[in-house]
């Protein structure tokens, strides 16, 4: 059998060598001060984030895999999960395009009212989300002056999520775009590249890390949104009910175990998406 030597190879000395090399590198470069800083950072991070998260996961895990399955197999919960995730993805994709365009306009173009627009971009971020819901309801609700009766439909979810996540990509891309040196674009132009080629091959690769960072923020915000949706979407089961509303319902009914299970599922989804975006960013920025 030819496969035998292949299977044995990891046990041979050649196979072990990389591990030994890794061990000889210094374990850490921390000085006393830096160690103290790391200690404080970890303590703070643990109290605020790690402990509560593990508490949720632990509470959810008490019921074992069966609990997760039964929660996810509930049709209403599953509908909420798919709605939340698909809307978050949709809105993030829209933001990737629109956010980059807005950042471009704010950095590269000169026009009247540019400063004002630059300030107004942050409004959706600064408004209490319930107010955001109210604002959107007045424009797209039953008394819509535009004749768009989107309240209490899935469109309302898209609208509300797009509203609250708008600034993320604009604000991550803008500083990077400002730092880009124009001589790089001029160099590409003198080598014969058209505007579109310069954008695709020179500018975009430099923006990808910022765009993915903004996309991660935007997606994370979208799957966790609650305030702006409560008013606008009507929380109709199977139609406009999102996960955060579903979790609240579980808690109100005293079913904290199911709430914890659903919460940890969303945690896993958020982690997966953030890791995927990071991988994507490394791929694209390395390709060139």
């Amino acid at each position, binding site marked *: 059998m030819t496969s035998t030597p292949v299977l044995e190879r990891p046990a041979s000395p050649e196979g072990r060598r990389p591990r030994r090399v890794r061990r000889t590198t210094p374990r850490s470069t921390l000085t006393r001060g830096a160690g103290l800083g790391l200690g404080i950072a970890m303590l703070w991070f643990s109290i605020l984030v790690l402990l509560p998260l593990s508490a949720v996961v632990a509470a959810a895990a008490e019921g074992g895999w069966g609990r997760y399955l039964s929660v996810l197999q509930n049709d209403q919960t599953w509908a909420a999960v798919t709605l939340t995730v698909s809307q978050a993805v949709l809105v993030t994709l829209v933001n990737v395009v629109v956010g980059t365009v807005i950042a471009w306009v704010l950095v590269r173009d000169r026009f009247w009212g540019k400063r004002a627009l630059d300030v107004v971009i942050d409004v959706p971020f600064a408004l209490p989300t319930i107010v955001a819901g109210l604002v959107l309801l007045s424009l797209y609700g039953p008394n819509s002056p535009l004749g768009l009766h989107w309240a209490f439909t899935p469109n309302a979810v898209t609208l509300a999520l797009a509203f609250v996540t708008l600034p993320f990509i604009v604000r991550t891309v803008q500083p990077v775009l400002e730092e880009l040196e124009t*001589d790089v674009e001029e*160099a*590409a*132009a*003198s080598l014969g590249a058209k505007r579109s*080629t310069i954008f695709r091959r020179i500018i975009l690769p*430099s923006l990808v890390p910022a765009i993915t960072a903004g996309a991660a923020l935007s997606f994370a915000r979208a799957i966790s949104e609650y305030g702006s949706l409560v008013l606008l979407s009507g929380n109709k089961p199977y139609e406009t009910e999102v996960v955060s509303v579903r979790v609240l319902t579980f808690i109100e009914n005293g079913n904290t175990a199911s709430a914890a299970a659903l919460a940890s599922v969303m945690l896993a989804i958020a982690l997966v998406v953030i890791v995927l975006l990071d991988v994507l960013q490394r791929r694209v920025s390395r390709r060139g």
Partner: protein
Amino acid sequence: MSIEVSGLTKKFGDFVALDDVSVSLPTGQLTALLGPSGGGKSTLLRIIAGLDTADSGTVSIEGVDATGLPAQKRNVGFVFQHYAVFKHMTVAKNVAFGLEIRKRPKAEIAHRVEELLELVHLSQFSHRLPSQLSGGQRQRMALARALAVEPSVLLLDEPFGALDAKVRKELRDWLRRLHDEVHVTTVFVTHDQEEALEVADEIVVINEGRVEQVGSPDQLYDEPANDFVMGFLGEVTTLGGVVLRPHDIEVALQPGLAGAVRGTVTRVLRVGFEVRVTVRTGDGDPTAVSAQASPETTVVLTRTHARQLGLDAGTQVWLTPASGATTVSSMAPAGRRAAVTSGV
């Protein structure tokens, strides 16, 4: 003539960067645009490349009117002071960029890139990212990238300006040798007269948006058109009403030659192999109150010569312009456009 520029004017608001500039740059030569910062030389280069547009005037490259052509269509290689590397691409990809744009076959691109990296001595770095290179290496890569598309002219904007003195000197020699190998018409901008004198076949001196003089390094140094060119190409000092170079003055301890100017040494400063001697000329008594207003002349001697003469502060000397020295009258109004006399 490879590049023909005529009547170029460019204003940035109230600031006149170029004022009716006309100049012809010869084919196959290495030309320096030399002048002080803000004199308009970079603007001229950028207009030739199509990266800026002139308010009026025309540019033609190799007989083709390029005035209205965008940068993409001028077939000009441009090298920037701060390298303008494509950060996310490897060295090889950077060099290949222009060829990929032109949709050349893969094998041809690979071959050409290899050739160019060989030329700029970066073969072993082809898979590195620009951030892993030193400044000098980055600029050599930028040069290879510009040469890859076989440009009809190569334009370099202060190419060594961001490098430290030693690397700058190395790259300068290297550029000269490279040009002798490649023979592409090359124009580079510099404010460093030593760089221009050492590297260029021809120098165009530009100041305040105007061309002051065009000529070979020797012509410019020996027959400067005016005191600006004279002053910009090297150190100058005044002696008895003429402007001349400090090393073109003969120092004697006795009043031998006719027309020698008497003076007293006030300061002797040694810099490496040379000695700078400051001499207070004008009449007699160095301790007189009027001495402050009396003119000073700087003389540069070699260490050996100064030691022979035994110069020290207080020594009485007689100064004469050396025979064959380039001098410009310092009496010219406002110091511009002075008459030139060569030899004494």
